[in-house]
């Protein structure tokens, strides 16, 4: 016998929920439609310095992401394999930089690496000036991207059972070789998604860069400068370029990670 509420819940599931989900999606994507309609396609032109900003963002973001991946991957693996009561301290230590507002982080970087700080003075003696330089720009991007990469990469490693690494050892394969033959292949999609996240964070970072490395100007700061100097119409070409260079690769990687997660669930 059908329960009295069955028909009602069936209607909710078939009509209301899809309608609500569509509404939320439209809400999320509507601003992108504005970009399509507001862009003056027949009068497309860049503002002087825009292409230089694109180059700056692409080159330095690549360097920053490389540093983040090289330094963050071993740390993320180590964090993933920690078991014990004190792991919550490690979690908190990673979350603090993640949760710190970017502007505040920028101020912290100026305080720590600025020209009058101990670290700044020590580095300047080595020829590394962290005052509106490429070094400062990359450092700001690293700080923006590293916590996100660590969290996502740690999750990717946690999804690989430690037992497989142990079995690899008992088969006469060193821990290092086992990492390349077992851990990395199994975590690769999650790590790629973590890298994509780091890329987006590095490319899009505005707050830290604004305070710590105003020059050289990457895309986010240049967009802000164009907006201040010339108004909304002047930023659209650079904004389109920003989307084109920053989004496709992470989007593709994100979709792959999602598809793989679903395949593993079905298995």
């Amino acid at each position, binding site marked *: 016998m059908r329960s009295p509420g069955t028909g009602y819940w069936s209607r909710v599931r078939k009509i209301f929920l899809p309608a609500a989900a569509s509404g939320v999606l439209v809400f999320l994507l509507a601003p992108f439609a504005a970009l399509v309609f507001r862009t003056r396609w027949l009068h497309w032109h860049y503002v002087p310095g825009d292409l230089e900003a694109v180059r700056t963002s692409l080159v330095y973001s690549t360097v920053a992401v490389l540093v983040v991946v090289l330094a963050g991957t071993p740390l993320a693996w180590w964090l993933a394999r920690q078991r014990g009561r004190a792991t919550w301290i490690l979690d908190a230590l990673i979350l603090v930089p993640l949760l710190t507002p970017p502007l505040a982080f920028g101020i912290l970087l100026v305080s720590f690496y600025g020209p009058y700080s101990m670290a700044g003075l020590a580095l300047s003696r080595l020829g590394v000036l962290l005052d509106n330089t490429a070094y400062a720009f990359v450092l700001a991007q690293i700080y923006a991207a590293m916590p996100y990469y660590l969290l996502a990469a740690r999750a990717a490693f946690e999804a690989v059972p430690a*037992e497989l690494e*142990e*079995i690899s*050892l*008992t088969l006469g*394969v060193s821990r290092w070789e086992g990492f390349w033959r077992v851990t990395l292949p199994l975590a690769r999609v999650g790590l790629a998604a973590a890298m994509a996240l780091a890329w987006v964070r590095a490319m899009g970072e505005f707050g830290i860069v604004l305070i710590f490395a105003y020059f050289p100007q990457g895309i986010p700061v240049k967009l802000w400068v164009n907006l201040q100097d010339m108004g909304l119409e002047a930023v659209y070409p650079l904004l389109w370029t920003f989307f084109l260079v920053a989004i496709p690769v992470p989007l593709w990687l994100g979709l792959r990670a999602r598809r793989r997660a679903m395949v593993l669930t079905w298995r």
Partner: protein
Amino acid sequence: MAVTVKYRLSRPVPLDISLEICGLTVLLGISGSGKSTLLRALAGLVPAQGSPWNQVPADQRPVGYLPQGLALFPHLRVWENVAYSLRGPAGSRRQAVLPVLERLGVGELADRFPHALSGGQKQRVALARAMARKPALLLLDEPTSALDPVTRTEIFEELLQEIRNSGVPVLAATHDSGLCHFADRLAILDQGRIPVAGSPAEVFSSPPDPRVARLLGITNFLEGTVHSGRGGDLYAVAGAGWQLLGRSSCSLQMGDLVTLGIPAEVIRPVLEPCQAGPGENILSARLSHWRQEGLQVGLHFSHPFPLHARVSSPVAGSVLAGNAQMVVQIPAEFVHLWKSLRQSKDFS
């Protein structure tokens, strides 16, 4: 070929083990007794002191290890899993492992991924992978747990044949006393030590205490007082309304309080009342209920003490046709006697 291991560790479970492993040695212990920890210590995955391979890293030990979940690499095909420990070009590694896979009956699955295999097929592949390295010792953790209950005996026998052909000594940790039937040697792990080890016949014939007896599948326990010695290790023990002959590996005195352990399989209902022969117990018992236990029938008696017997269906059919009061025969050699812990406490 035999390996003698002496291992001591304090965490995660304190263990102090000395054990000779030859043929198939089954390590029997309850869950949480440290069986898996001992295997992991022998494989070098848990810090421990001992010999052989003291302080030798796991990747340099000549030890094959099959964990409970088998841990096949999900991103590698069957042949790639088996050839994981081999060196050289992919083609030659594949050629090297194909005959092994054929012998184990999984040759046609060489290009499949582990998720497409059944429990028994996974077990074969995991065994082939561990054996590919030609270990000096093979460790199996709960080897029958991943197998289908219907076919597990058959599959395990096949795997065992393969292992025996290789001549590698095997230590199989399990809580399944059914695995003891396959063992060349049986060891009991209890409270961090091995209180008894030997051939299955030796261990089953004289379990050192009721805890071990319970682990070996003995289900009937009761308390009585030693009435008299009958020569050798035979003693007459009496309780409220009953008297039984039993065996004890240690010397008992008249009046000693003892625990009796009787395996359910040795209790035989008899149709006609008869006289007890030498070394036999004849008991008049009242059947309270019975239950089908697989191919056998469990008979539960309530008098003169609670007793569980397991008999074949035809035997059960003939005795269940009679009345509830019946006669049962229990060979004295299977009635185990241990000094009661309660008495020891009293004496101390």
